Every structure is written in C-alpha cells, then in structure tokens.
C-alpha cells in the first residue's frame, strides 16, 4: 500500500497554500449557489422524514408494510445498510493510519464525517421500529420498580451497546483528529464570529511539541481500537440474524459476510463523496486521480470478497441439506423476490468488473457510476436477506408477502436527508480535508524529492 516510488500528492504546491485553500472553504463562500441547491433538496428530504416520523408515532408501525412473518423489513434492512456504509469511514481513517498509507490523508476527514451521520441514520431505525419508542430507556440497565433488567443474553440488547459505543468512539476519534485543524481555521479567520467559533472548538490548541506527542499517542491508539470495533459492531449486527434459527440467516458465514459487505458498500459511498467533493470544491490537487485509483482497487477487492460470501452462502445451504434451508435458497433464486437476489448480483458484481481497467478507476464519472450501482446493489442485498428469509416461515399457514408502503419509502428517502443535511453543514463549517496531515505528507514528499 505504501508505494514510495510515486507521490500521491503533487509536490508543486506549498504548505501555506493548502492551509489557505482548505480553511478558505468554511471561511468563504466559493460555491454558494450549488451548496444552497443541495441543501434545499436535502432539507426537503429531511422534512419528509419528520412528517413520516410524526405520522408513525401517531399511527404506529402499522403504516409500514410489515406484517407477521415479515416483521423486520425496511427498518432493519436500512439500519444494516446505513451502518455498513458508515464502517468504511472508520476503516479508511483508522486502519490506513495504522498501516501508514499516505493516500488516506486526503480522504479521512470526510469519510469520518460520513461515518457519523450514517450511524445516526442507522441508529434511529431500530428506535422507530420499536413501536413504542418512548420506552427506549428499557434497553438500559436502571433500577426499575419491578426489579427487571435488560436481557443481556440476547443479541437485541447487544445491539444498542454496540451501536452507541460505535457512535461515541467515532465522534471522539473524529473530534480528536479535528482539533489541530480547527486551530488552523481559528488562526486564518478574520471575522469575529468565526474566530469565536473556531477558538472555542479548537480548545486552545497551539501545536506544542509536548502536546503533539501525547496527541499522536492517543490518536493512534484510538485508531487501533476503532478497527476491531468496526469488525465487532457489524459482526454483532449479523448476530441479530445468525443467532436466530430462521433458514437463510442461521449460518456461521454471516459475521465476515456482513463486515465485508459493509466495507464494500461503504468504500463505494466514499468514492461517490470523493468524486463529488473534488469536482464541487475544485480539490483536484488534493484528491488526485491516484486517490480514485486506490479507492477503485479497494472497492473491487472488497466486492470480490463479498462475492465469495454469496458463493459460500449457497454452498452452506446445499451442504446443510436441511429442507427449510434448501427451500429458502430456492425462494431466493426463483421465488417472488428473485428480482432482489438477481438485482443484487447484477448491481453489485457486473459493473464492478470494469474496475479491473486502470482508466476506469482513474476517471471520476465512471467510478461514480459503478459506486452508485454498488450502493443500490448492497441495498438490494440487505432487502433480499431480510425479506426472502422471512416471508415463508416454517409453517405454511403463516406464509405471507411484504410490499413496502408509501411510508416505508418516505422514511427511507427521508433518512437520506437526515444524512445529507448535517453532512452538507459539516463540509461547509469545518475543514473537510485534514490540513495538518496533508501538510505533513507534502513535507515528507518534498524531502524525498530533494533527496
């Protein structure tokens, strides 16, 4: 990964220039109109979510298409999808920090920001799905008058601990990495309001050598903890499924299959954001074609690993010889929801093969289109895993179908607004690419060029 022969950043730029360029994005308004249009669109989606949630709280989960065999559907399906997208941010940031991959530095900040808001979108779904969300505090161990406690032997209880831990650690890691850049923005700010905003949020950082020493140790160790955390969180999510005995879920392949699928969809969304942001803010000198090249390779690699999961899932069912497992497999391949299965295969793995070509990986729009296909494909995959396992239960008498209702869709598209609104605010108000890490890398590269 750390290929020293070629520089990832063009060396013909100055450190001060990078600092001015990146702090300039929050401090000035270079792209006001496009940002406003995007914000308007995102706000409408968010408004739709709010309406959907109010109707949901007033009417109950009956407004969704869920029924008794298919009682999880959209809520859990989108929960898994959003959470999976979030994982790539942590992986890019933490794993590549530990392996000292230089190409991470231009991507980690917005990838981490993406993680935060994707986890928020994921996190609200199980709460909405509770039916009586005002009882959410029952998930926490508090001394209740009835002396009962949460059931710690159930994966449903593990879930809330895993997701809240993930959200908290992600916020803490993101903010720790942000402090030096907030200080940089503070020192560039000329307007009083910005000076106060960045002055307070940068916590008085002054770049002292003693501070950097402690900061580096804390940052690297937190990164070291974040990597197993990602694996544990999505493994735990897969245990929501695998710990039950539902055919199509009860399989040991699930934890790695889920984690790899999460990384796959997440890296695809990181590619979408990287391509969009660099054309939007003119960051071609920082997010280079080389960065897209590496991202394309990672999407291809994680995609092929996910494909292995598909193969093994089929093998697992055949090898078990269990009649219900075989029935579920047949339902997936040829049943009422076969379009979801084949749609997932086609969207996930067919356009993906174009990434074998270097030119495709290095072109913004082609990488963007393939990544959009992957995001759709992974969405179909999560749908397929949920619905095809549930709609034909063990008892023929309880077989049914699931059709998403209007409110299912409005809630789902609404969460895209819930993701985009804070994300757009974040790229507007904080340095969206890590300034000090980019400067550090540029300095290193210049040193190597000079010999």
């Amino acid at each position, binding site marked *: 990964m750390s290929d020293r022969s070629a520089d990832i950043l063009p060396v013909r730029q100055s*450190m*001060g220039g990078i*600092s*001015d360029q990146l702090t300039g994005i929050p401090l000035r308004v270079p792209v006001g109109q496009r940002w406003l249009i995007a914000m308007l669109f995102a706000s409408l989606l968010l408004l739709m979510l709010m309406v959907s949630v109010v109707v949901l709280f007033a009417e109950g989960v009956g407004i969704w298409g869920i029924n008794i065999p298919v009682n999880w559907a959209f809520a859990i399906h989108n929960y898994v999808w959003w959470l999976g997208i979030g994982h790539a941010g942590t992986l890019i940031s933490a794993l590549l920090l530990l392996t000292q991959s230089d190409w991470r530095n231009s991507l980690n900040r917005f990838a981490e920001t993406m993680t935060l808001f994707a986890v928020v979108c994921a996190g609200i779904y199980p709460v909405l799905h509770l039916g009586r969300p005002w009882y959410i505090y029952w998930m926490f*161990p508090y001394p209740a008058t009835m*002396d*009962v*406690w*949460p*059931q*710690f*032997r159930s994966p449903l*209880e*593990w879930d809330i*601990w*895993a997701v809240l*831990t993930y959200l*908290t*650690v992600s916020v*803490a*890691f993101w903010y*720790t990495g942000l402090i*030096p850049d907030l*200080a*940089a923005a*503070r*020192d*560039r700010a000329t307007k009083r309001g910005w000076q106060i905003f960045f002055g*307070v949020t940068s*916590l*008085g*950082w*002054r*770049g*002292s*050598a*003693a*501070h*950097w*020493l*402690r*900061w*580096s*140790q*804390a940052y690297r*160790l*937190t990164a070291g*903890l*974040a990597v*197993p*955390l990602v694996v*544990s*969180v999505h493994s735990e999510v897969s*245990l929501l499924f695998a710990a039950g005995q539902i055919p199509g879920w009860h399989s040991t392949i699930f934890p790695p299959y889920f984690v790899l699928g999460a990384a796959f969809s997440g890296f695809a969304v990181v590619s979408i954001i990287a391509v969009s942001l660099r054309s939007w803010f003119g960051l071609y000198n920082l997010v280079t074609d080389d960065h897209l090249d590496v991202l394309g390779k990672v999407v291809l690699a994680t995609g092929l690993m996910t494909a292995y999961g598909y193969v093994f899932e089929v093998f697992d069912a055949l090898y078990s010889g269990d009649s219900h497992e075989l029935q579920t497999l047949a339902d997936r391949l040829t049943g009422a929801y076969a379009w979801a299965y084949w749609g997932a295969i086609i969207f996930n793995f067919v356009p993906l093969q174009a990434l074998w070509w270097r030119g495709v990986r290095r072109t913004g729009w082609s990488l963007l289109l393939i990544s959009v296909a992957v995001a759709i494909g992974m969405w179909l995959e999560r749908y397929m895993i949920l619905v095809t396992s549930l709609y034909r239960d063990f008892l023929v008498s309880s077989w049914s179908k699931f059709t998403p209702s209007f409110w299912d869709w409005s809630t789902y598209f609404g969460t895209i607004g819930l993701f985009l609104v804070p994300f757009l605010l974040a790229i507007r108000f904080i340095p969206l690419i890590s*300034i*000090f*890490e980019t*400067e*550090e890398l540029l*300095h290193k590269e210049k040193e190597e060029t000079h010999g």
Partner: protein
Amino acid sequence: MAERAYGLLAEFDSPEALTAAARKARDAGYQRLDAFTPFPVEGLARIMRMPRPTISRVGLIGGFGGGGFALLMQCYTNYSFPLNVGGRPLYPLSAFAVVMFELTILFSALSMIVAMLWQNGLPRLNFPLFGASRFHLATKDRFFLCVGAEDEKFDEEQTSAFLQQIGASSVESVPR
C-alpha cells in the same frame, strides 16, 4: 522589570531548521524549551528531552475498567433477577462477551482522549503565546521555538542574540 516575559519566541522556515536550532539551544544549556509546529515533527520531543507520554497506560487501565464493569453489570442483573430461558445458563461468558468487548473499547478510547486533553492542559481559552504577532502562522507553515523565561540561562538580550545566531528569521519577546 515592570512586566516579566513569558519567553522568547523564535521563528523558523522549516522543520529541519527548527530541529537543528532546538538541538543547538539544548546544547547551549537551555532547559525550558518548547516548539510549536503545524504538524508533528519527528524527533523534536527527543531533542527537547520530553518524557514519554503515558496515554497508553491510561488506555490499558480504562480498557480493563470497562471490561470489568461490563462483566460485573451483566452478572449482577442476572443475579438480581434470574430468568430461566429454556434452561440456558445464567452467567454465560459467551453471551456477555459482546457487551464486555464494546465497553472495553469505549472506556479505553474515552479515557485516553480525556487523559490527552487533561495532560495537555486543554481546553483553555487563552495562552500568553497567542499574543505574539506571528504565532498564528504556527498552524500554517512556520515553525517556532520558545525559550521560557523561567529558564536559568534566560536573559532577554543574550538569549535573543543567541536565537538570531542559530538561524531564527524573527525573534519576539512574549509578555506573560
């Protein structure tokens, strides 16, 4: 001396110049040295003889604390209200492992970040050096060396001349 100075702040153009100057200042016998850089510069801490940070130890303690807390909490809830679910064991470590793992990481990460801020004396709103006229470049592309006024060898004129001599592009006296 009406107002005692905080120290002298010397500006350098590159990390290499700063590192070289820090080494010379140390060799000249200055003890109260600190450097201010836009990004971590390797080797500076060693030159200035800064103690190894202890964040990792805090993280280890936090991790054990979190894991232990999670285990005790889960055992206690099952002890306090034992619930027989199909004859499954009341204290299964395999089922407790997930929450234990999560809280180990949570406590460890948060304790390290809090310890980092605590030991650095952050957050704080102001600091004498922020008054220096060129210090805002320490987060951009300039590298600063500060000799504290508490230093035994500190003498405003001599130290200033010394810093000029070792290559500082500007030297400024910072009031406390």
